[in-house]
């Protein structure tokens, strides 16, 4: 029966919905094959990215599938216990609802600590253990040594939702997209997975009638996509931000992003901590000279994916938007 579920997950080709795209069945199997006295399951509901609200939407509207998915994982792994690592701001809204759904099962809700980095899988393990949100060296991966040193499965809310749906044989290859910014029709939308970004905009009534660009995969760490680049599926976190070009202050926008990244910083590694600090200085001076060095160090040498993706994100904005903005103004 349980073997059955894993082959179904594999067959459906469920990829991690946190943006990692790591095949869910492989992650489950790698925890399964670890020999350990105890195992744990964590549902990551930290939802830290700017503009991301799909996990909140799922928890509010479809919590029974999420809890079902966690139960399936606990069963499959013979895990000791499950945790839902919940964003502070969501606590009030969904805590009671989740509790009701959980019933007497061994699933505990833990309040998230720290900023964006508090949602990184090794950092959240530290928080559940009672420590500070700081990423840990990988390997060992949480699948090998997670909570209290035991193999731990960490999956996103939406990944568990999919499993819950598969279990009940109700899965329809759906995916949730959080569409915000200057979007004409803001909100979280449930659509078919695998469709192109343009199709997403079209089917949600979000094709702007103004000049725009998109930031996809996260309001802070996502990458910039121009209107001519949208005929590809969204292979990142289900977040689309639409920005109107007219009257846009590029520096104010970057400041907002970098403020968020500094706020969510763990202070651990040099390139991310100091690099972002210097990028902020450049933004405030409205002069990005020297930024390439910062991005290079962040991309190549950051301790965890926050620094790397922050750099990729900023670079795509500098190249696709700021550069043209300058050229137009000159």
């Amino acid at each position, binding site marked *: 029966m349980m073997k059955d579920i894993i082959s179904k997950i594999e067959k459906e080709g469920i990829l991690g919905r946190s943006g990692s795209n790591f095949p869910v069945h492989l992650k489950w199997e790698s925890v399964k094959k670890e020999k350990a006295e105890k195992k744990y399951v964590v549902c990551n509901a930290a939802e830290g990215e700017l503009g991301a609200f799909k996990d909140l939407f799922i928890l509010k509207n479809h919590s029974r599938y999420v809890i079902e998915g966690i139960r399936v994982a606990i069963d499959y792994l013979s895990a000791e216990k499950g945790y839902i690592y919940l964003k502070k701001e969501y606590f009030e809204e969904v805590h009671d609802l989740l509790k009701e759904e959980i019933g007497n099962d061994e699933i505990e809700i833990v309040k998230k600590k720290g*900023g964006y980095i508090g949602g990184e899988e090794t950092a959240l393990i530290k928080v559940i253990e009672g420590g500070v949100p700081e990423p840990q060296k990988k390997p060992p991966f949480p699948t090998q040594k997670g909570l209290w040193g035991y193999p731990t499965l960490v999956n996103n809310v939406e990944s568990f939702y999919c499993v819950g749906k598969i279990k009940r044989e109700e899965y329809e290859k759906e995916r949730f997209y959080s569409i915000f910014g200057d979007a004409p029709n803001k909100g979280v939308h449930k659509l078919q997975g695998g469709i192109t970004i343009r199709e997403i905009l079209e089917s949600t009534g979000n094709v702007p009638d103004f000049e725009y660009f998109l930031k996809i995969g996260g309001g802070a760490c996502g990458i910039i996509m121009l209107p001519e680049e949208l005929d590809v599926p969204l292979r990142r976190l289900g977040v689309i931000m639409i920005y109107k070009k007219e009257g846009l202050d590029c520096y104010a926008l970057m400041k907002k992003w970098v403020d968020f990244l500094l706020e969510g910083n763990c202070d651990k590694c040099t390139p991310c901590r100091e690099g972002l600090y*210097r990028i902020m200085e450049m933004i405030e001076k409205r002069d990005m000279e020297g930024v390439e060095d910062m991005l290079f160090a962040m991309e190549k040498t950051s301790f965890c994916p926050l620094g790397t993706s922050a750099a990729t994100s900023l670079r795509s904005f500098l190249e696709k938007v700021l550069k043209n903005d300058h050229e137009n103004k000159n």
Partner: protein
Amino acid sequence: MKIKINGKKLLAKEGETILDVSKRNGIHIPTLCYHSDVTIKASCRVCVVEVNREELLPSCSTKVQNGMVVETDTSSVRRARKINLELLFSQHQEECHDCIWNLNCKMLDFAKEYKVKINKFKDRKDHYPAYRFGCSLEFDSSKCIDCRNCIEICKEQGVGFLEMRGKSHLREVFPSERKDKDCVHCGQCINHCPAGAFEAVGEFERTEKPLKKEEITLIFQIAPAVRAAIGEEFGLPAGFNLMGELVSSLRQLGGDNIFDVPVGADITTMEESKEFLKRTEEGGLPLLTSCCPSWVRFVEFYYPEFIPHLTTVRSPHIILGKLIKEYFSTKKGVDPQELFLISIMPCVAKKHEIEREELAENGVRPVDYVMTTRETGRLLKKNNIKLKGMEKGRTDDPFGEASFSGVSYGASGGVMQSAIFNIIGERVQFKKVSSGLAEASISYKGRNLRLAVVHGLKNARNALEGLKKDPKRYDYVEVMACPGGCIGGGGQPVPTSESMTKERRAGLRKASEDKEVLKAKDNPVVKKVYEEILTTEKEISRICHTRYHEASKTPLYKNKRNNK
């Protein structure tokens, strides 16, 4: 397994890091936050190397894999190192003229190697304050590069006075404000900070001050652990015994008289073995040693209930200091005010010890200044005195030569061995129980006496907790706050590490084996002191004994900056 570094085929063992293999094969990789004594943080990102021609990974934390291809010096490696170094310098306020790393700073070396512009950015922390913990230690937070080795080592020392505070990218190392936490001045933070953010009070701005007083008689006394480490300040490997050279150098520096602290240690041994026997007869065991001022402060602050168990015998340099001043005033007619006595110590807590009120008599302290091994090296270099190749000098009469036992005080176990040797006439074999704890038992006059030698304060904490549960667990415990004893002290040259401490220990061992007399009580100097100065119980008590008191938290002294 086989890996390739810079095109060279090398053998590696499972579990080794790229840095381990590189070091073993003499391949240079710059490291900053890496320190062999603490866990790998991999946070400075200076030691990155190129792995399998695709990614840059920190060599300190990346484990080797069979067939791995590593390049340590490609253009992207160099570029990443240069940028990360520039960023590290951007949060590190330089104060190179007054830094304990002196001319031996890794950050500056790498700056040269990677053509780093150290002032490319305005210092982010230029307005960060400097803190002073008591009268021994300073932490200049404007130099901190956030590696947090100090926090780990402070915790490892069983103290946990250094903490993190703040949020996000502005988290910082901060001395605890909690009433139940205080610094005990071991100085291990100094030894494990790559950025020179910690230093002893007085390093180095006060170092020369005492030497400028011309009308005074300037006296130096040298602690045992200094002789096996001072050479490192002059580029020699750890463990060279340079006692003779140091004596001559200090004379050249203007020292009128030079004495050897191990002679004071011989007196400590005499008194402490007497006290141990007395307590064996009359009660009051276990006896705890008190030579280490950091340990004493640890007891006074964290475990005051054990104060009655601390031996009342003063530490060697305090006893010898007192004897020297006594001798100069009574036998040579020199006014104690005209004497200036400097102890050269591997320790920063000794700076605190000499300020203790109980030690002063009529306003005169046994020792006027404590100079660390580092300060001494700096001073000699500044005065162009080359220790290497200096003629070997001898310490002065009437406190000329110490015993083997006295010199052995410089490493963990020395105090205990000396006292027991003095009592039973043979050396005891200790059994290592764990890192930082060794035990032995002896039978004396029909009694079985249990002995323990402890170094590192975390181990000391465990020993005290054990004694709380079972007061009869030990009868006599030696504790040194620093790993390895004074030889690994917070005043020793940097860099320092566990393996260097071992080398120094071997050097100290050789230095003690040079001594003709083995036991403290057989030392003619000791006999003479008891015949001429320590003639009555009253005099012994006045010169050799002290008392302790419960300590409260030292107010934190903060030195604000107005650069911003």
